[in-house]
């Protein structure tokens, strides 16, 4: 395992200390492993809390700041945070208008956030609403399973719900907005290499030199199938086709096209992919209104990428364009 770390057991607290040192505008609660806006709680504003296992940086801590999250809970690498953390975060950001929990759909995350919401309402009376993201078309959905994973759309939910909260919308309105983004977003990812969990010390899965995994998540979970390496043009098809098959993205005000690095894939490759994806979308009659290209929701040192499409209307576009000022996403501010 080649990583720039100290003791694998301390990766998360060490990184949190680095974040605190690099971003004086943020407040880091090392005891509870929280990253909080320096000016929290913002009076009268709905508070936005998210969180999850670490290893997906900049998600979520990098999205804390004006226009996006109020706090993020950092779990162990790839392990949902515990209810105590979410409870502390909820208390820290409650400005009197209630708190929205943005939860990626993983059994652990859902259960821990659920316990936290129960505790928050019981212990503090803070009103908590949870929105679960589940945009990964690689996972066959069904009533009897854990359902789809929450992946790329989570970034877009945090941005757009954050903008809605900034406008002074109510808790239920912000929750509806978050749900609307989730409902209109779909993602699909692929891995060229496995990631290595620091505590495990070796790659989560073996992937031969001439193969890639299609339909991976962001936790080094193996994907749905293994296929031979292919040129970017074919890879783009493998990612975009299932997305377009799952939801009609034509018409309206177009889409936000988000091409994401899994961590070890550099920007030059993402742009090669973006070119292919844009061509497929054009052919399918899908208009790209905005784009986002870069490492925003990663899986440690995994090479690969994911594509997220979000169908937007005028409202979502305006909220997307609204100022945001975080370490990981910043414009208009």
């Amino acid at each position, binding site marked *: 395992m080649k990583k720039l770390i100290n003791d694998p057991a301390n990766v998360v607290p060490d990184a949190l200390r680095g974040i605190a040192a690099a971003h004086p505008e943020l407040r880091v609660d090392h005891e509870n492993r929280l990253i909080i806006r320096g000016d929290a709680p913002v009076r009268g504003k709905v508070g936005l809390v998210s969180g999850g296992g670490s290893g997906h940086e900049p998600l979520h801590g990098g999205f804390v700041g004006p226009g996006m999250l109020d706090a993020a809970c950092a779990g162990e690498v*790839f392990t949902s945070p515990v209810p105590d953390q979410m409870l502390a975060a909820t208390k820290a950001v409650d400005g009197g208008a209630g708190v929205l929990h943005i939860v990626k759909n993983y059994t652990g995350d859902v259960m821990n956030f659920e316990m936290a919401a129960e505790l928050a309402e019981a212990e503090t009376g803070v009103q908590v609403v949870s929105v679960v993201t589940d945009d990964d078309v690689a996972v066959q959905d069904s009533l009897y399973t854990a359902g789809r994973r929450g992946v790329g759309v989570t970034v877009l939910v945090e941005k757009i719900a954050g903008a809605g909260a900034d406008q002074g919308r109510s808790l239920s309105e912000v929750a509806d907005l978050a749900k609307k983004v989730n409902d209109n977003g779909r993602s699909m990812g692929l891995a060229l290499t496995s990631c290595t969990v620091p505590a495990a010390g070796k790659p*989560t899965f073996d992937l031969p030199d001439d193969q890639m995994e299609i339909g991976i998540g962001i936790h080094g979970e193996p994907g749905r199938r293994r296929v031979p390496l292919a040129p970017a043009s074919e890879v783009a098809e493998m990612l975009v086709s299932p997305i377009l098959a799952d939801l009609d993205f034509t018409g309206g005000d177009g889409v936000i096209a988000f091409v994401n690095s899994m961590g070890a894939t550099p920007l030059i490759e993402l742009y090669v992919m973006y070119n292919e994806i844009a061509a497929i979308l054009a052919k399918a009659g899908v208009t790209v209104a905005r784009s986002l290209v870069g490492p925003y929701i990663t899986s440690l040192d995994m090479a690969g990428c994911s594509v997220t499409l979000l169908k937007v209307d005028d409202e979502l576009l305006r909220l997307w364009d609204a100022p945001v000022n975080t370490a990981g996403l910043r414009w208009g501010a």
Partner: protein
Amino acid sequence: MNAAVLTAWLTEFARLVSSHRDLLTELDSAIGDADHGSNLDRGMTAVLATLEKESPPTPAAVLKRTGMTLVSTVGGASGPLYGTAFLRMATAAGDDDTLDGPGFAKALRAALDGVVARGKAVAGDKTMYDALAPAVDALDAALADGQPFDEAIDAALRAAEQGREATTPMVARKGRASYLGERSAGHQDPGATSVTFLIAAAAATLSG
């Protein structure tokens, strides 16, 4: 079984988890995210520290501190599941200074109910349920059959082991392994494996 005996049980469980930490993580690598071993090991290490520091006086107190500590330190799916299981056990154990065999069996059934309430798993979903449920059923059946606790808990362990083995061919429908669909078949479930250690630890340390 008093607080000390239950603490011995948990100490043995912690030892088994710690010594099989890599196995659990390995199993979780195949169909999950390679952290079940470190998750549970972190949690049970914290539990032992808490129990040592606080020496809770009653079985219920031991079980409650265990559940709360697991909830607060494990995270992931297994944190709330194991945590809820122990918290429900604590409630079922009542305020007595000791638990007898049937009392323990009742508490273990409450643990199972807690896992179901939290995780909504049913038989065949390829989760810890598939080892825990047969164990609880076997324990109840053996005790109802008039067997002594030592034999009943051994029967529970055999049932857990069989349940654990039975997870291998299953196609997962809950937890992270469900994302793999058909590809999850052929791998033993990590949670079913760790919960079998819990029963093995009981068989090694508890007697009615």
